[in-house]
């Protein structure tokens, strides 16, 4: 039984009111057009705002880990630091490189940012806050997010710079390797949930999150997904492509001004996207914590809006990612590839089969205790 509590703070109230008003006053075509434009504007704003918040948060948290202050001059507690940085990066000159391949050099950041924006649209931020939602959601996300690597490889090749070239090659090898693991880990949960659609997947986790439902198998998949997501975004101990002590800045060494800004933006957004996909698939997405039968408790939990739950869970995962980043030394390229090909890939394959057996024999939590969930 699905209970519907009144949720006064929910944004979906606003959107459904807007929808009915527009449809009531305008023809179908114009109403749809206006809605499309509104959704696009909201998504773009969210994209930029989330990136700014993430950059500030990362700098502050990094400073906390390294026992220093971090940004504290612009605005109260340095709150306006990333806004100032953004304005500055918009005004910077874009330097052309003599020996670069002009067209590819110009086109490379576009791939990166468009790939991350396409993935961004498929995230469910809350109930009714979901722009792209169809039956192949998980497959779409894995497919589109891997387009970003084309931008990295093009950037490295077209800059005609040795650092860029080495950085891009490393990044390419690392990204495609860990893409396999991420795909397998997500597939393990697709097996459990029986659907690839994000909205159905989230609804199915109302009383039992996927990470608990598939117990052993789910937890292994979750850890592997976090590791490979970390590696895909070139962060933490896996930041070989931009290892600043050996490669200056890796594949974006030659980029300046806004073009560099695009790479910067896409990198932070990819971190957010990885965290939010992990939230959606493993941790119940925007679903509040609900326990079957505890109606009072459920009502209190459901009173907190769904987007708060979503951003809360995502923030925890992002904090975890930063924690890992500042806790482990950087890997060597052969260690990195060994970890993927010799450990994660076989473990993943076995894990997938284990999950299938768990589901078929009914040893998942919902299978074992059907009354509880």
């Amino acid at each position, binding site marked *: 039984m699905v209970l519907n509590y009144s949720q006064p703070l929910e944004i979906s109230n606003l959107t459904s009111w807007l929808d009915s008003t527009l449809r009531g006053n305008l023809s179908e075509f114009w109403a749809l057009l206006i809605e*499309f434009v509104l959704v*696009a504007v909201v*998504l*773009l704003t969210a994209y930029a705002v989330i990136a700014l918040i993430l950059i500030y948060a990362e700098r502050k948290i990094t400073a906390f880990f390294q026992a220093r202050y971090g940004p504290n001059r612009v605005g109260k507690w340095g709150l306006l630091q990333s806004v100032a940085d953004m304005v500055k990066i*918009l*005004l*910077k*000159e874009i330097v052309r*490189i*003599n*020996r670069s391949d002009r067209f590819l050099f110009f086109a490379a*950041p*576009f791939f990166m*940012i*468009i790939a991350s*924006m*396409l993935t961004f*649209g498929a995230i469910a931020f809350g109930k009714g806050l979901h*722009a*792209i939602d*169809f*039956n192949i959601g998980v*497959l*779409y996300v894995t497919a589109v997010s891997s387009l970003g690597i084309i931008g990295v490889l093009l950037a490295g*090749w077209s800059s*005609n*710079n*040795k650092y*860029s*070239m080495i950085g891009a*090659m490393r990044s*390419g*090898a690392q990204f*495609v*390797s860990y*893409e*396999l693991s991420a*795909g*397998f880990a997500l*597939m393990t949960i*697709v097996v459990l949930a*029986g659907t*690839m659609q994000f909205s159905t997947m989230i609804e199915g986790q109302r009383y039992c999150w996927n990470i608990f439902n598939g117990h052993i198998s789910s937890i292994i998949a979750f850890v592997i997904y976090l590791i490979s997501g970390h590696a895909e975004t070139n962060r933490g101990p896996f930041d070989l492509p931009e290892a600043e002590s050996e490669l200056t800045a890796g594949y974006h*060494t*030659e980029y300046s*001004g*806004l073009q560099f800004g*695009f790479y910067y933006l896409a990198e932070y957004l990819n971190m957010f996207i990885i965290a939010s996909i992990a939230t959606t698939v493993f941790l119940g997405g925007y679903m509040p914590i609900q326990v079957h039968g505890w109606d009072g408790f459920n009502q209190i939990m459901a009173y907190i809006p769904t987007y708060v739950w979503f951003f809360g869970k995502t923030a925890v995962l992002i904090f975890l990612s930063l924690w890992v980043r500042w806790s482990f030394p950087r890997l060597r*390229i*052969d260690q990195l*590839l060994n970890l993927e*090909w*010799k450990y994660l*890939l*076989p473990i993943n*394959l076995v894990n*997938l*089969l284990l999950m*299938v057996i768990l589901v*078929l024999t009914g040893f998942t939590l919902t299978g074992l205790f059907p009354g509880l969930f």
Partner: protein
Amino acid sequence: MNRVYIASDYEPVLIQFFVALSFVVIVMVVTHLIISTRKRVRTLKKEENFECGIDIQGNARFPFSIKYFLIAILFVLFDVEVIFFYPWAVNFRDTDWSGFLDMMLFVLIFVFGFFYIYKKGALDWNKEQE
């Protein structure tokens, strides 16, 4: 529940693509307009590749370690195999154990291929070439 999806259900992807493209293009044009009000200084040194301040040595399009290419090829093979898993992963409840056994055959081939490249030394990134 089992709704059939048609091509027009995937239109949001196209719309999102054009939104993203137009965002990038508009921001590029706007900043270009702002920047072009200033005088542009072009010198040979400025537009050279960055190589930590020393003169550039040769070209960056040099022969690269074959291992990176090998990874890319292996990835293509394995990723296609992963894609074959997806339809089964969604529908395996309908095929039950017989489908599972059929899939085990596929996994066997997968593992055999993996074992082969492992033994062939394709995953030894550090070994010196004789």
